[in-house]
């Protein structure tokens, strides 16, 4: 066979390679965002309290047991969707959940919690979003799992839905509690 004929196969071969990558790419969820903070200690921060009688949130509070840190805002619609799921996690599974109230007006956030219920142990007010930047948050809601040593072990972007609880959040927490 004429070796020049092989040249005409190059475009096809290149396309097969690209198509192979596309096939692998499709299996991956572009929404899973790895966090550079995974397995790192919680960043240094200290936030004032939102609700009277409930403490604010600081680095030192996040150690000793496995817990969730949820970043929320009253203006964020998906937060409203995940709220009952978080409430159930706190009540039925006895998982401590702390919150960072992200770029919110305190009175709006208080009204929101009064309306929907308040499952949080501690709530810190992050009015300008600085502390959330330290956490690597780029949108609300986001939820982190922090272990006993105060290290971030998992980051969930977007609302926590029941199937996320079953498939990742609960198994992860059980593993960390062991």
């Amino acid at each position, binding site marked *: 066979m*004429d070796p*020049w*004929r092989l040249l*005409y*196969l190059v*475009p*096809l071969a290149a*396309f*097969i390679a*690209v*198509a192979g*990558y*596309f*096939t*692998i*790419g*499709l*299996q*991956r969820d*572009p*929404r899973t*965002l*790895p966090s550079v903070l995974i397995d790192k200690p919680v960043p240094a921060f200290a936030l004032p309290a939102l609700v009277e009688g409930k403490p604010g949130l600081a680095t030192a509070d996040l150690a000793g047991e496995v817990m969730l840190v949820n970043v929320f805002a009253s*203006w964020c*619609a998906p937060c409203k969707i995940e709220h009952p799921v978080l409430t159930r996690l706190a009540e039925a599974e006895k998982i401590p959940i702390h919150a960072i109230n992200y770029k919110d007006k305190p009175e709006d956030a208080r009204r929101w919690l009064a309306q929907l219920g308040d499952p949080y142990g501690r709530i810190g007010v992050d*009015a*300008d979003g600085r502390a959330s930047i330290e956490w690597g948050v780029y949108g609300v809601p986001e939820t982190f799992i922090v272990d006993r040593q105060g290290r971030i072990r998992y980051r969930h972007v977007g609302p926590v839905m029941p199937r996320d609880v079953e498939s990742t959040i609960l198994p992860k927490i059980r593993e960390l509690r062991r």
Partner: protein
Amino acid sequence: MIAELGHFALALALALALAQGTLPLIGAQRGDGVWIALAKPLAQAQFLCIALAFAALTHAYVTSDFSLANVARNSHSAKPLIYKISGVWGNHEGSMLLWVLILALFGFLVAIAGRNLPPALGARVLAIQGLIGAGFLAFILFTSNPFERVFPVPVDGNGLNPILQDPGLAIHPPFLYLGYVGFSIAFAFAVAALIEGRVDPAWARWVRPWTLGAWCALTIGIALGSYWAYYELGWGGWWFWDPVENASFMPWLAGTALLHSAAVVEKREALKSWTILLAIIAFSLSLIGTFLVRSGVLTSVHAFATDPARGLFILMLLVAAIGGSLTLYAVRAPQLKLGGLFHPISREGGMVLNNLLLSTALATVFLGTLYPLFLDAVGGGKVSVGAPYFNATFVPIMVPLVAAMAVGPLLAWKRGDLAGALGRLKFAFAAAVAVTLTVFALTWGGPVLAPLAMGLAAWLFVATLADYAERIQLFRAPLGESLRRARNLPRASYGMTVAHAGMAVAIAGMVGASAWRVEVVQAARPGDVVEAAGFALRFDGVHQSKGPNYTLESGGFTVTRQGRFITRLEAERRFFTDPPQVTTEAAIRTTALGDLYVAIGEDTADQPGARTVRVWYNPLVVWIWVGCLIMAAGGLLSLTDRRLRVGAPSRRRAKLPAAGAGVRA
């Protein structure tokens, strides 16, 4: 009821497309005139069915029929009419419907315009079109049905993403799709030629107008998208090397290369198998672009529908269309007869250089766009490739391209005279040096390479005009003779001149807006003055008001320069409720020399009462879009060439006057 009719019409279109994709192909293979003759009526009927379906969906949007899930998800009763209509293609399902509508429209046009086309070739072209159409119609019907009902019927819809509620974006997708999908005709012609095993000048003459039309639409579409991103996103930039922008830019690069190599096939019967390959690649890139946007394998602000099942379906279509055509290419292309020989220094040689550089540029954009995907696939983590990569790779390839672009048209076919061509470019060279030095003096202390880039733009512009002057023997022959030549010069030649000049204008704009851009970010209270690029902008404070489906706050600025009043600018932030979102409407004062661009942000947290004010001065930025429009106008001008309209016999007549000018035609 109307929606069900639309759904039915779509299903019927699929059946017709399947028939169109098979029967004429078999007929052409067997030489069966009856089956060959089926191609045209089937293509026309398929178009009418899809048009009916599209009309049905548009009706649902205009009447806010929220019993359709698609309308409920993407429209809202309070939206202005134009955005109800543009909402039809402002979502995944509708935009795919627009895609097949345009595909079928091109099939329809080939069917009615293709009287001179040899029947077997025409049947094959329409059959390939039909197969592509069938694939995408099946995709719509099985994975993205726009006519799905929802029960209970919602009281009102979710609304269209406010950022898309903009006149520029209402017409941007149709133009883009006209371009993308227009390349399907070149693709169908290429595959048909491979099946027939014959590529000749007549074939190239058939392909060129379709490619040219698609190229013009794509040029306009990309320019519109860039302009929209510029004034709507409030970031002051005009091109972000975003994956979706690249997805539209890659077919443009391939299409530009195709236009030039098809000219060589037409004039000299050379570069045949390369031209075929480019035709396949141009449309393949359109398909890959559709896949990237629709499947969500690359995350981007544009990817508004991400669903793995859909991605898999489009991927299968890609494999069938691209894999199939490239396999055919590997088998048949070696049998194509080699064309005329030419010297490296010749018009053909210039086109080859053009093609090599454009292909290399295309490859760098392709790699940069897909690199994150490749890396992720091998477990290398998530990265994004940004402007620095593209600036470092793409721009250096453009420099020799533009430099050679000035010389190529002055070379003769077959064997050119480089020294002679360069000799005729002494004015262009002088202009380039003069512009470089002037700009260098004016921008002393600024970027060093930018004046050279401006000189390059001047070089191209003046050389293009010099080439035109040469063609009509301006100042050499008596004026009457020059006028006669100007009248007789083919429109295609004018088109080239205009398009190349437009490119020079666009380059000057890109250089200006990138090199000498000024950006000032400052927190300002009412009464504060922000200074940028010699302008003083006094912030007059913010007031609230109400638009048709949003509330807005607008920040007023009084602009002065050296104490003299220039203008008043109002930068807005619009607050939409359905869906809740804030959009930035920058205030822009456009002049030929540069844009003054102001955007306001929210209250700054640490300084109560102050606003974040961003001011940009973008020199020459408007030249970019004007240049693109000039390029598209050049393409349209070339499209009116009588050679492309009437076919072979008139060609000799059109060539006559140019033949008198020597060997150059």
